[in-house]
């Protein structure tokens, strides 16, 4: 009855005698998919002819769930979408509610939010770096990446009370004030990070095997990147400016000095470099703000029950994976009438078939690594 059984039935005899093509199921349990992604690949020898994603293995219908949660409650669910940038997801939702309610967020809260966002971005890219190196067969970088990531998680734990799904954002500010140690710990992390960043190049970036695995693999032209709705480092690797923080600044990003990282290669190596350099830009943002956290409230005074006015609200933020859109349709009640999360992973996945055709099965792993797919984000 289910799709899966059919595929297996058709796939066991395997090959089509004339063309020598055969299908192979990658996933839903496969080491390279980092989650329950199911790809049906048509192969001719080692060459990929077609990649067909089958989704839904962890679809929780967060959009439907949010329809029965209030505007304070629904924020926590979004941590479970893209769990690696849960802070930024929460931030997007909080921003959308604030836009609807026209809540003025105190400056201290804004700065804290941006600091947390950038820390989350670094943590997410660290995990991506380690996991991608592991996909390519180098296991050591994974542990080295986790060393830095853990120190960010410790900072998060101290201030937000959790390591991964913090639920720190509330409409109108943040839930608690930062921990007194926060600034000290962040500075320690920046020192650690700057000491270790060269090792990343020694271990992975400069490695000739790695470069050969990455260069010219999965080339995405700028036109295709835009047409497929890609966002984040995937488009910036193709040279298309798409950083929401620069183009449609939210919070205090317009007052900050940072560069939008652009690479023109369009291949996996370009996407790799974008993420590596983005981490350094995030460090730059944190350095600007860490001593400049203004005094004041960390949360605006809001009503106990939030009611968005009738209408439609859309916010776009830049998560670690790309553009996250939150689209709330309100009927004036305490719960959203319809909510849509435009997740970056879903669109980035759709480009996989296009860039994978004609390359080897080993390249597919490299491409999936640099697209940085987080499956709960795709399935929502």
């Amino acid at each position, binding site marked *: *009855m*289910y*799709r899966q059984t*059919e595929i297996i039935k058709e796939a066991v005899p395997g090959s089509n005698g004339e063309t020598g093509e055969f299908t192979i199921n990658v996933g839903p349990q496969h080491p390279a998919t980092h989650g329950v992604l199911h790809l049906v690949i048509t192969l001719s020898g080692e060459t990929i002819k077609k990649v067909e*994603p*089958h*989704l*839904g293995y962890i*679809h929780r*219908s967060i*959009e*439907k769930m949010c329809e*029965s949660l209030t505007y304070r409650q629904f924020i926590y669910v979004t941590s479970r979408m893209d769990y690696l940038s849960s802070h930024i997801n929460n931030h997007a939702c909080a921003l959308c509610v604030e836009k609807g309610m026209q809540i003025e967020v105190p400056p201290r809260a804004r700065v804290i939010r941006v600091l947390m966002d950038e820390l989350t971005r670094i943590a997410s890219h660290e995990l991506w770096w380690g996991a991608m190196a592991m996909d390519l067969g180098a296991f050591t970088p994974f542990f080295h990446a986790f060393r830095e990531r853990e120190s960010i998680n410790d900072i998060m734990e101290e201030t937000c009370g959790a390591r991964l799904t913090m639920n720190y954002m509330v409409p109108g500010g943040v839930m608690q004030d930062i921990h007194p140690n926060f600034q000290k710990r962040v500075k320690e992390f920046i020192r650690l990070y700057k000491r270790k960043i060269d090792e990343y190049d020694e271990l992975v970036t400069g490695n000739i095997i790695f470069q050969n695995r990455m260069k010219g693999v999965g080339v995405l032209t700028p*036109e*295709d990147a*835009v*047409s*497929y*709705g*890609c*966002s984040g480092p995937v488009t910036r690797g193709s040279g*298309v*400016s*798409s950083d929401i923080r620069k*183009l449609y600044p939210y919070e205090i990003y317009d007052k900050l000095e940072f560069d939008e990282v652009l690479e023109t290669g369009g291949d996996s190596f370009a996407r790799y470099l974008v993420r590596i350099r983005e981490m350094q830009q995030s460090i730059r943002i944190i350095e600007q703000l860490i001593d400049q956290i203004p005094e004041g409230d960390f949360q605006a005074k809001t009503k106990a029950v939030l009611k968005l006015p009738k*209408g*439609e*609200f*859309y916010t*776009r933020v830049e998560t670690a994976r790309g*553009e996250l*859109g939150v*689209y709330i*349709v309100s009927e004036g009640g305490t719960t959203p*009438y*319809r909510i*849509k999360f*435009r997740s970056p992973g*879903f*669109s980035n*996945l*759709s480009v996989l078939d*296009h860039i994978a055709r004609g390359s080897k099965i080993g390249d597919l792993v490299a491409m999936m690594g640099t697209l940085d797919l987080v499956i709960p984000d795709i*399935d929502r």
Partner: protein
Amino acid sequence: MTNEELKIKITELLPAASFEEGGEWLTISIEPGDWLSLAQQLRKDEALFFDYLFCLTCVDWKTHLSMVYHLSSTQYRHTIVVKAKLDRNKPEIETVSQIWRTAEFHEREVYEMFGVNFRNHPDLRLLILPDGWEGKNPLRKDFEDPVNMIRL
């Protein structure tokens, strides 16, 4: 282009379009039959150049469905929202997956979640739901799943 200029330009392209007020971006309401030609013009027109479809979704209004397309231009950075009202019992609209490739996946998602039939879609199959799914479309308002849905 500002919203005013866009409004003038789009009225030229499609005189039947009506505009909704109050949103952040220019919101255009159209009939489903006009959508494909409008979409092609929005994408092709040099002054508009809407090449980035960043959100495609549907809203169930209990009386009707409405498709919502968020379009943006990577060149001019202007944004519009296009809405098309669909019949709830037999929702049908032309696909735009050949204009914006991202629509292919998003339309498949809307197809299974709302039951909207996209005409001429290259590969209109279930994407998230298991094959052989029978029953209502999950994101419609009258969907009930007594087993898996928890009511608070």
